């Protein structure tokens, strides 16, 4: 099962090819903001490294954001039409879902040992606002079923359930996280780039017991995007409507809703 993932929602373009969960090739174009120029070359490169052509891809996946509007739309336009042209499925995965699964994968051993955990993905989404998505991680699907949450991702017997999200002014991020901190749900792992962007707000949180920062899950990884797409394809989730994930309504002529 070959999965081609396109992550163009930041200034860094990342294309990855997985064989099921395993990364087999990748290509990056960093800090160019020229995704339209580099996109097809990177795709060709990852397929070439694997000795494959586009017909060998079984699933397409793309990061739907939130992120850079233009970059995200380039990736979605290419992923959507490649999948359509090849009569293959395409899955859109949100950036917080990708980061949460990255944080889970990087902290898997202590989470498995504890049996449960909370993951909070905090993204700096400009305008001095932070978008936070909250996840519970458990050994079984009890958490998800009990709360009616859909499984974001499942790795063997351990699953992530998204329990909510919120867009706040950055100064409110501490209280939002603490308000949602479930003392019975295990240690908390924070991922995303907001912790670095607003260190003065996050450092006090990170000094508390059982709250950890997952340093390597600040930016999204297309290989993890592919793993989620593989999982969703396997459990026959409804195919994503492939449009960017906008966290704010767009209001012309300035101002916010």
């Amino acid at each position, binding site marked *: 099962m070959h999965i081609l993932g396109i992550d163009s929602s930041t200034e860094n373009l990342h294309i990855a090819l997985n064989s099921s969960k395993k990364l087999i090739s990748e290509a990056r174009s960093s800090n160019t903001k020229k995704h*339209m120029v580099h996109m097809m070359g990177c795709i060709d490169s990852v397929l070439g490294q694997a000795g494959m052509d586009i017909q060998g891809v079984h699933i397409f996946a793309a990061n739907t954001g939130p992120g850079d509007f233009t970059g995200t739309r380039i990736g979605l*336009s*290419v992923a*959507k*039409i490649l999948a*359509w042209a090849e009569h293959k499925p395409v899955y859109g995965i949100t950036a917080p879902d990708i980061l949460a699964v990255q944080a889970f994968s990087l902290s898997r051993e202590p989470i498995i040992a504890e049996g449960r955990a909370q993951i909070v993905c905090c993204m700096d989404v400009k305008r001095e606002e932070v978008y936070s998505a909250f996840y519970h991680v458990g050994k079984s699907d009890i958490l998800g079923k009990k709360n009616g949450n859909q499984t974001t991702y499942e790795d063997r017997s351990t699953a992530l359930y998204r329990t909510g999200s919120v867009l706040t002014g950055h100064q409110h991020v501490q209280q939002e996280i603490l308000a949602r901190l479930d003392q019975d749900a295990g240690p908390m792992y924070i991922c995303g780039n907001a912790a670095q962007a607003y260190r003065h707000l996050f450092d006090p949180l990170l000094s508390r017991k059982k709250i950890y920062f997952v340093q390597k899950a600040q930016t999204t990884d297309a290989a993890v995007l592919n793993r989620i797409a593989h999982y969703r394809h396997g459990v026959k989730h409804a195919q994503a409507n492939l449009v960017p994930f906008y966290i704010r309504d767009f209001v012309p002529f300035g101002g916010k809703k």
Partner: protein
Amino acid sequence: MKDKNIHILGIETSCDDTAAAVVRDGKQVLSNVVSSQNDIHRKYGGVVPEIASRKHIEVIGVVIQEALNRAKMGLDAVDAVSVTHRPGLIGSLLVGVGAAKAISYAKGIPLIGTNHLKAHIYSNLLINPHITGHCIGLIVSGGHSSIYHVDGQLQIRALGHTVDDAAGEAFDKIARYLGLGYPGGPIIDKLSASGDEQFIEFPRPMMDSGDYNFSFSGLKTALIYATKKNPQITSEKNMASLAASFQESIVDVLVHKTVKACKDYGINTILVSGGVAANSRLRQRFEQTCEKEGIALWIPPLWLCMDNAAMVACLGYYEFKAGKRCTLDMDVSSRSDI
């Protein structure tokens, strides 16, 4: 042996219309699908670029599929994909170009990046494929008002542009100022039909400037000053005549300068295109003037005046035949290269 037919898939997303079309041999339009965003942008009185980009990404796949369905063919029968990559709104262009590159890569067919303005001129070849050049082209729309010289090889060279507002932009802005709605061009056109174009003698900007440039911003200001000086001219009774007078000034300048270019270059064919080419008074005045001056006139039907992908496929065909091929690192640009 008869040559194989060439089928070009055209994709157009340079502004607020998502369009796809299939054209055979540069002259037979097998399908022409346009998803208009007019209803969405109407409440803002003009195109909002971010909203346009958002809508393009929602419908691009459906529009391309529909174009193939109506052409009764599959993607495998397409020989090349032609896409507008300049000029236009960057966020909008990127959606169409991304889609075109994906098709080119997946199917291993040539990618042809086309100039939107050049495609408007080539829309005339869809109504008369025997046009061989030696023409003066006028493109007049919401974003452009330009005069071009088209040589015997159908190569295009700009003679003049608007130095400020495009004609269609002036119509939109004045319609908004007068509370008439959006898009302004068709509204003013319809309203003017029952008005007196001599009601107010508005200036004819740059009429005798000696070049082929236009300027419509001052005309817009002239109307605003006129209404402030005499508010009665905006009464319900006078509105049609006010609109007709404003329209007549724009039409006068467009016709005069285009015909002047013909005379200066010793050319006797005019190609008019672009959204404002749908304006009934402009069409009438061009017909009258060209008949009097012995100039051949080509203006496409209304569906080809608006932004569409058939013209992009048509131009793509000629560039395909000329051997043009774009690489997959092709970028987009807000600016025209002609």
